[in-house]
């Protein structure tokens, strides 16, 4: 027996809704009552729960719009089975993806390999897939831990303002849950800012720091831009700002040469929660870490794409100058998302840092 998963009518004037994301994969077993996907109208978001236990087949793509009643998927019902919604484990190149409860929310995370821990922190409107291109071959003897920031990727959305303190608390909670007391940290953009704050306030936890495409404080024009993007997203959702974010994050050259990857990244961005991205943007606009730099004691690499528009090399130079002993590396032919555009170069630098 088959049950259809359809786009529900959530509001009195609703005729179309967007399928924001699937919580389950094609072919996965779902339990009755378990949330299987998230849909959105311009007024609200809602979870759709499976109304039967069985095997889910996905018929609709994330980020697309569907009419009320349209079939999003089907469940091949398994009668009389007892299914518990448990921690989902999927294999990802020898790694496991989990959800960790910490600091009052659930964070999606992934660990690959074993050895000296390297924690990867992505940036605004991104997710841990930012680091997917890193060459694990060069990182033998390293345990790579990456996670989705609150309100990003597969991590739980949380209402209310984003603050740097909350993000740092999330990270510390994650590390505690994994029993990691000291690690090397690599953060990109906002991720870099989180890493700076952690290194300044808990130097004992930070063996080494890689700050990619980031800054201690954005210049006024960029701060204004973040507020405008936040406002745009608040009023009109992710579609209103995704193009701009893509342009700021990647060189046109990269996007032209990698259409499939670009499409995947774009879809992920479109499916993000607009309220969370807006709140995070406003937070980023107000961050000022210039006074924190002198407290950083560990070996530090400052890495920037030569063609990074959002955090240009000049900002990276300032950042490196403010941290004792920091080394600056400019990666040619890369924009803001250097781990995506030049994964080999980034991997080499991170390997160098971890093994030092």
């Amino acid at each position, binding site marked *: 027996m088959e049950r259809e998963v359809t786009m529900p009518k959530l509001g*009195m*004037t609703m005729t179309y809704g967007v399928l924001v994301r699937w919580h389950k994969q094609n072919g996965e077993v779902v339990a009755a009552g378990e949330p299987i996907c998230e849909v959105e109208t311009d007024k*609200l978001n809602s979870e759709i729960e499976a109304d039967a236990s069985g095997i889910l087949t996905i018929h609709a793509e994330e980020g697309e719009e569907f009419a009320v009643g349209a079939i999003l998927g089907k469940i091949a019902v398994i009668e009389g089975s007892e299914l518990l919604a448990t921690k989902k484990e999927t294999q990802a190149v020898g790694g496991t993806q989990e959800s960790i409860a910490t600091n009052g929310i659930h964070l999606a995370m992934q660990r690959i390999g074993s050895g000296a821990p390297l924690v990867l922190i992505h940036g605004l409107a991104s997710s841990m897939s930012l680091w997917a291109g890193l060459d694990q071959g060069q990182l033998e003897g390293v345990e790579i831990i990456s996670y989705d920031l609150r309100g990003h990727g597969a991590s739980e959305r949380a*209402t209310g303002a984003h603050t740097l303190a909350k993000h740092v608390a999330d990270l510390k909670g994650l590390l505690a849950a994994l029993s990691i007391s000291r690690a090397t940290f690599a953060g990109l953009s906002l991720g870099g800012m989180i890493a700076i704050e952690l290194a300044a306030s808990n130097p004992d936890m930070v063996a080494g720091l890689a700050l990619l495409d980031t800054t201690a404080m954005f210049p006024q024009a960029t701060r204004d831009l973040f507020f405008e993007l936040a406002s745009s997203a608040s009023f009109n959702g992710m579609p209103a700002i995704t193009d701009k974010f893509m342009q700021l994050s990647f060189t046109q050259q990269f996007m032209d040469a990698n259409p499939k990857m670009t499409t995947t990244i774009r879809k992920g961005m479109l499916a993000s929660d607009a309220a969370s991205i807006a709140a995070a943007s406003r937070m980023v606009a107000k961050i000022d870490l210039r006074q924190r730099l002198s407290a950083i004691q560990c070996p530090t690499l400052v890495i920037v794409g030569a063609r990074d528009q959002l955090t240009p090399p000049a900002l990276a130079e300032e950042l490196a100058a403010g941290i004792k002993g920091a080394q600056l590396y400019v990666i040619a032919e890369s924009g803001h998302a250097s781990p995506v555009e030049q994964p080999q170069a980034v991997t080499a630098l991170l390997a160098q840092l971890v093994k030092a």
Partner: protein
Amino acid sequence: MQLDKDTLLRLYETMVTIRVFETRVKEEFAKGRIPGFVHLYAGEEAVATGIIAHLSEDDKITSTHRGHGHCIAKGCDVNGMMAEIFGKATGLCKGKGGSMHIADVSKGMLGANGIVGGGPPLACGAALTAKVLGNGQVCVCFFGDGAAQEGTFHESLNLAAIWKLPVIFIAENNGFAESTPASYHCAIENIGDRAASYGIPGASVDGMDVFAVYEAAQEAINRARRGQGPSLLECKTYRFNGHFEGDQQLYKTDALQQSMMERDPITNFRLVTTQQGLLTSEELDAIDVRVKESIEHAVAFADQSPYPALSEVDTDVYVTA
């Protein structure tokens, strides 16, 4: 305090009628069948019920934008109310007022009011009439914590005090003026304390407890009837829904909502009266059934009633010779 069985049953029936009515309005609104805006009273039933239980049909009340509860407690016809909310010709106001302006002057209900703070001066006027005509009537004035910051509140209390008017001011403090908490918008914690500034008696009671409200109201209303002038009674209460339907209520925490819903005036009334052997579950259940039927009937009535004729657009503006 000892209340006789009839009174207890009446109190229960009024509260349940309000709750079921508001729940049905919420459902119908979600389906898109009610025009405009609705502001629901669910959670605050004990206040309207406990106070209006002391009033006769001739006594007057003024109300707020959140007026369905006051209307029902005052004895307005639920069929006419529902039809008014639906905008039908058979509504209490012929479909011209809607939820925010629902009224029945023949039952002493001087109207819900879309203007926060619009009621207190009107109530003073109604009380003035009662005093001048010497008919022993009183006027109860309902308003919210938001309205307690309007100039009309202050002017009305002073006026009622100097003229010793038979008006009872009821501050329904549900903790929020739209999305702004009372802890921010009000300079003091207990609105009841403001009575002292105007030289009138004041008190603050638990508005989730119909017995507490009933008792405090009795005292205030008797005082007014005896010609001893106005009082201010603050009832601390809580609205289970938003300011209007469609309000995402971000200003409420889940913890607050949950803790207040545990203080549901109706469930607690049932608990207290059955535990103390004052009423039986069967008696209360019977009321539940009857009320549900009557509200279903009201919805059907509203549904089947016609809209007003277009020629009604500019009638009832003036009294004509």
